[in-house]
């Protein structure tokens, strides 16, 4: 049963990633694409966690933490660039 649940969750996450990529390609404005990128990194964390469950190992959690922190910082940096025209004033 755990196997089936893992497969269902994996399929849903991959479908969500495909929709994010569609929005990234189509997005009419820059903030739309930025939002799509932000959601892509959150979904990729989910994908990494599911990979860890699939392989029954915990070595990938550092990668998940790294992606979470770097994604947040990069989103903040681009937002600030769009808002102020400069990242560090």
């Amino acid at each position, binding site marked *: 049963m755990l196997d089936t649940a893992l497969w269902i969750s994996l399929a*849903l996450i991959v479908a*969500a990633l495909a*929709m*994010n990529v*569609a929005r990234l390609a189509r997005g009419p404005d820059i903030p739309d694409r*930025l939002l799509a990128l932000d959601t892509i990194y959150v979904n990729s964390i989910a994908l990494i966690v599911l990979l860890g469950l699939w392989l029954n190992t915990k070595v990938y*959690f550092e990668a998940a933490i790294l992606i*979470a922190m770097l994604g947040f910082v990069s989103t903040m940096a681009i937002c600030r660039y769009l808002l102020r025209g400069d990242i560090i004033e």
Partner: protein
Amino acid sequence: MAFYVLLEWVISLLLIAGGVFAFVGSLGMLQFKDFFMRLHGPTKGTTLGIGCILMASMVYFSVVQPGIHVQELLITLFLFITAPVTGHMLAKTGLHMHLRYTRDTRGSPPELRDEDVGQGRVERPPRPRRPASEGQKRRWRLRR
């Protein structure tokens, strides 16, 4: 034995719930009409979904491996703290860039009210005058 079956149910439920929430969040981002509506899906749905999946992973590794594993709680906490901040900054960016929005998107934040921002709206400089071409003159004549 029944305890482990119950735990398996809990983990499966959390996994599927997480997948569904992440899917719904991305679906909202794909389908809604303007940027301020699209902001709602990822900031709420996807965050809750990833929280569910990380909880499932935490329960699973605490059952399978010896000891209690709470590293996933770190990622969950970090994402739950940063998602509203990201949403706020993205909304500010959208307001700053004066994105188009539908009539259903209500509210009038200070960024959209001209009289509240600084000295008011800056006038556009006048257009440089250029001698009218023959085609323009003909069009003006036709319009009159």
